[in-house]
């Protein structure tokens, strides 16, 4: 995963709550076996509407998505994160995120910046007068800013550290290999193992 210190660029406002991952990337796209190439499927159904935010003339090369509460609810598909990234988004700003989506974002390097509802409204208001203005999501400083607007955002310490360092989670976890092996020796004997591999790997 590459490190993300700061995201700067054009923002798109999708002022809806409960945007689910079926909207972000429809199921028909989940047949791909790659992590790339999902950008064309991003918000596929909504993009059929000429009035949709991503279809506006100014919506060129956006980096930041500003959305409503409970963003990314529903299906656990990480493809939703990949679709946002493939389209060019590097950060999502919302009052709350669904748990699995937030975890997937950290894993894939998409910044989820959780802001107060009021701050979100003020940010949208600030951009209404100047939609082309750059928005900055500063991971190190935990702030979202736009011309004449700055607000703090919440992100878990570990998620922030991983984004800043561009860490590979598995590598970090494998430092605890001894603890994992030790734990495995204490597991109750009745716990199930799949038939074919009875006893393997223990």
């Amino acid at each position, binding site marked *: 995963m590459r490190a993300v210190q700061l995201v700067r660029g054009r923002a798109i406002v999708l002022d*809806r*709550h*409960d945007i*689910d991952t*079926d909207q972000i990337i*429809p*199921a*028909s796209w*989940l*047949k*791909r*076996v790659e*992590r790339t190439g999902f950008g064309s499927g991003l918000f596929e*159904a909504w993009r059929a509407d000429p009035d949709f935010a991503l279809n506006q003339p100014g919506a060129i090369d956006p980096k930041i998505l500003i959305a*409503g*509460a*409970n963003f990314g*609810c*529903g*299906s*656990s*598909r*990480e493809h939703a*994160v990949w679709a946002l990234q493939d389209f060019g988004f590097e950060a999502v700003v919302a009052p*709350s995120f*669904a*748990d*699995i989506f937030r*975890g*997937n974002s950290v*894993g*894939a390097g998409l910044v989820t910046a959780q802001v107060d509802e009021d701050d979100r409204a003020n940010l949208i208001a600030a951009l209404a007068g100047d939609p082309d203005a750059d928005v900055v999501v500063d991971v190190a400083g935990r702030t979202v800013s736009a011309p004449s607007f700055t607000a703090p955002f919440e992100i*878990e*310490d*570990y998620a922030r550290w991983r984004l800043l360092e561009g860490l*590979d*989670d*598995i590598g*970090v*976890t*494998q430092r*605890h290999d001894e*603890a*994992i092996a030790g*734990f*495995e020796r204490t597991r*109750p*004997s*009745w*716990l*199930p*193992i*799949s*038939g*074919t*591999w009875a*006893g*393997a*790997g*223990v």
Partner: protein
Amino acid sequence: MATPARLFDKVWQRHLVASPDGEPPLLYIDLHLVHEVTSPQAFEGLELAGRQVRRPDLTVATMDHDVPTVPGPITDPLAAEQMARLRKNCERHGITLYPLGSADQGVVHVIGPQLGLTQPGMTVVCGDSHTSTHGAFGALAFGIGTTEVEHVLATQTLRQGKPQAMAVTVDGELPAGVTAKDLVLGIIAELGTGGGAGSVIEYRGEAVRGLDMEGRMTVCNMSIEAGARAGMIAPDDTTFAFLEGRQHAPKGAEWERALDDWRSLVTDENAPFDREVQIDASSLRPVVTWGTNPAQSVTIDSVVPDPASFSSPGQQQAAQRALEYMGLAAGTAVRDIAVDTVFIGSCTNGRLADLRAAAGVLRGRTINPAVRAIVVPGSARVKAEAEAEGLDEVFRAAGFEWRSAGCSMCLGMNGDILAPRERSASTSNRNFEGRQGPGGRTHLVSPTMAAATAVAGRFAMPSDLDGGR
């Protein structure tokens, strides 16, 4: 005396491998379920990094999301490629696979319990949000994304901040005709789509204890629709009776040792929860969703709500948008809404008990000729067991198509979809825009209401049929 602990704390605590400073706790995973759609990129990542699957013996795979439910070859080349990839990955890493055609193939959350792989006190994960289903056994079970799938494959652990614990207590008895599906839709309406975020819900109370395992699985399954990380129900004699004798359940002296342990998996008296919600079971009625998220539901006796009746501008806007998408007018009686398609199946309501309940309504009846009705058993074994009881004949005689196991129309990946503007009564779990096919309009209901609706051609309860309304 030790501090009173919650069921969730007990299961969490016994899986903590390490709590390193500055890192989220490392949780051991007892069972990792894998399917064809969310795993190929994880296996690829593993191989690119030269890593192995740490515990193939704690990993079980099946094909469910895009398998065809009609006989014949797989006609979709992309779906065929995903299934071929899964087969290759399982062979390469020594993972047990129940492929299409196997007697134990099926929806991943149906086969885990069916094989006795899901047991009390375990941690279970899968790259699928409805993994919460397995919490019905007192397991801590939750959905993960593909990067986390790769992490579990490589390390058999997951990094997880400890969620909060919420109690949803349902006192009293469910009224006649009110099912587990109605109960959980009622709970979601109460909590809202994000009300459970950051929490593990423990379902408690007389009405929950009174549910059979299938009903408990239906309730835990939809925890995610309230935004919860997981749902759990403390194991009891109902749980143990379901498990005993199953293929992977402990046997002999091991069974006795396991039972002793499992009986301790209850929330201690006076253990405080971070949030508690009380629901009076007697107030619940059969429910139909009218909108585009599972919290937007009303009882069968109601009318489609007026957006102006909602308190916040956000909810009003969402309701207005939902009505437009669903092609519904406020004030329409639910029983006056005609449907085109009825779908019975999914990890929510595709188990044998669900099919029995629906067949009980359909016996001796035929569906409305304007309705297309399909039933998709949750697993190949559910299908075989239903056929042994003659349920397939009941469904066929009523006018239903009797299909093979898979996720099918729940998410419409395999070609079983709604046409644009087509309206369904569906026993699945999500009524999101386009969930069952672009432009499709989904109403979530219980299996008995789905069956009665197929007969009536519009939303109906079994008691409405034959002039019994």
